[in-house]
């Protein structure tokens, strides 16, 4: 009896250990497949061609610049209004809202985060884009601006929850000390609490931006999908195309192992590396936050 129990426990423990390491295996697998199908691009398309500004796969033009530019402008636009709004909302929820409001708002923001992006894209097509077209007198509402607005809406819940957690984690004693010195609540928030939560808030922003860069469906549905380099002063009001939308839109039509196929995987590889970079930066900030807290408190 005892020995079968020990044997069972041994197998289970082994399985659990394997599950633990599975995350590493999956990341490596994904990286491998992206490399395998994407790297041939380097052999098939010249570097000069890759950094040109024409993306027209049918005629073998694989310039990535318009796509990168599209992702950039949409992300920047989203960041511009998502970051301030997100942080201010987080401050409100963490520092100012009474208990009952907090208990209402936190789940509410989570709900927003749970709305599928395809639904937001859907509303974008039917409501946002036509409104933008009428309001700003544009030829079409399917523009980078529409994409930015939707992406901002998607990034805000992430920024709010992570930043709110970070603000919540600031020890009471910091606020009490500031208030005891005669500061108003407002001054305390901006001069003491927020700086103390700095790395957590930074993490929130990075994670929000990460979600923005990686978003596919919403942007694909409202940005107009024109692979044009967005460097004009009014590019925000023109259609663009992001890297993610390109993959999603064109993958269905490519022949396997064609150059186009390899380039799309290459774009995927680039996206993978970008998100890797952002996440490593974000997690280093989190680690730093722990170490800082330990240093201060000891």
């Amino acid at each position, binding site marked *: 009896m005892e020995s079968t129990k020990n044997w069972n*426990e041994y197998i*289970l*423990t082994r*399985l*659990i250990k394997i599950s*633990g*390491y*599975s*995350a*590493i295996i*999956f*990341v490596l697998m*994904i990286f491998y*497949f*992206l490399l*395998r*199908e994407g790297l041939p691009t380097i052999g098939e398309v010249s570097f000069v061609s890759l950094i040109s500004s024409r993306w027209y796969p049918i005629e073998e033009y694989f310039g990535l610049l318009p796509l990168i530019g599209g992702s950039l402008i949409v992300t920047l636009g989203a960041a511009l209004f998502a970051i301030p*709004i997100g942080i*201010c*909302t987080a*401050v*409100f929820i963490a520092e*100012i809202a009474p208990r009952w409001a907090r208990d209402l*708002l936190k*789940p*509410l*923001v989570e*709900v*927003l985060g*749970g*709305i*599928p*992006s395809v639904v*937001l*894209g859907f*509303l974008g*097509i039917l409501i946002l884009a036509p409104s933008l077209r009428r309001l700003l007198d544009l030829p079409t509402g399917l523009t980078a601006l529409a994409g930015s607005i939707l992406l901002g*809406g998607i990034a805000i819940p992430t920024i709010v929850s992570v930043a709110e957690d970070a603000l919540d984690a600031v020890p009471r004693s910091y606020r009490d000390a500031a208030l005891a010195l005669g500061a*108003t*609540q*407002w001054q305390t928030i901006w001069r003491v609490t927020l700086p103390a939560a700095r790395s957590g808030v930074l993490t929130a922003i990075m994670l929000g931006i*990460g979600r923005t860069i*990686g*978003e*596919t*469906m919403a942007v694909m*549905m409202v940005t107009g999908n024109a692979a044009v380099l967005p460097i004009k002063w009014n590019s925000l009001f023109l259609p663009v195309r992001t890297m*993610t939308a390109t*993959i*999603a839109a064109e*993958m*269905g039509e490519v022949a*396997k192992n064609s150059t186009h196929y390899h380039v799309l*995987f290459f774009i*995927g590889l680039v*996206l*993978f590396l970008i*998100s890797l970079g952002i*996440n490593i930066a974000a*997690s280093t900030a989190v680690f730093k936050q722990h170490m800082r807290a330990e240093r201060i408190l000891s």
Partner: protein
Amino acid sequence: MALLDGQKELSKNPGSSDSRLVKQKLGFGCLTLTTFVTVIPIFAVVIYILIKGLPAISWSFLTSFPFDGVKQGGILPAIIGTFLLTLGTAIFSVPLGIGAAIYLSEYAPESRWTRVIRIAIINLAGIPSVVYGLFGLGMFVIFLKFGTSILAGSLTLSIMTLPVIISTSEEALRAVPQSFRVVSISIGATRWQTIRRIVLPQSLPGIITGVILGLERAAGETAPILFTAASFFLPRLPNSPLDPTMALPYHLFVISTQVPGMPVKIQYGTALVLIAFVLGMNLIATTIRSRARAHRQW
């Protein structure tokens, strides 16, 4: 007398409390406004879709097949498809995710390898959904020759859902007081017995909440299933995991962007069903979480 003079001095201070309080009131007002900006769209989105989509909802809409292309009829196959994909995702990601969480919380030492695992998990969490789609295409559809199938889609969605399940489950496990484990060991239980009899049952509500939230996201995603499982119009329900399937998010995407003359009512109806599915899961998860908190024995 000196004391009284001093008190008078304090209230005559430049930058007096009056102007600071005014500034504070203004600032608080701004923050409240910002929060409204964040919160109102949530209501707006849900209510709007509810109003415009409800007319389309009927028993036949939910239980019959589309016909006339997809311009008439119901969305049963899409509903079933989303349900099957969610089930498939659960089958793969739940045991693996909980196992990994148990490893990280109960077994793993604070070593370099454990840090690598955590970095891997953070990375999996940040990979754009369309890149998961690419990976799924390369690995499951092509390399493992599953073809466009429920199996390929579920496996892809599982890896994507893994980080959410692992992190929420680990948090739930760690929340169980360490003293329980110490007592259990001191009575002669093994580590696994302690986990099975005390730690897991006590953390189960938190784990279930995390699982539901993870599956809710998987249900709403389009990009990972674009090339791995989804098909636009299938005359029959799938009868094996190797069949492709329709799915609600993909269906919504196609009917709102690629079907000319698509009745708007049906589009909203589909969006409503998708939101109801996702938010319903959210509601269940939140309810489990708050009820568990109330009944805790520690």
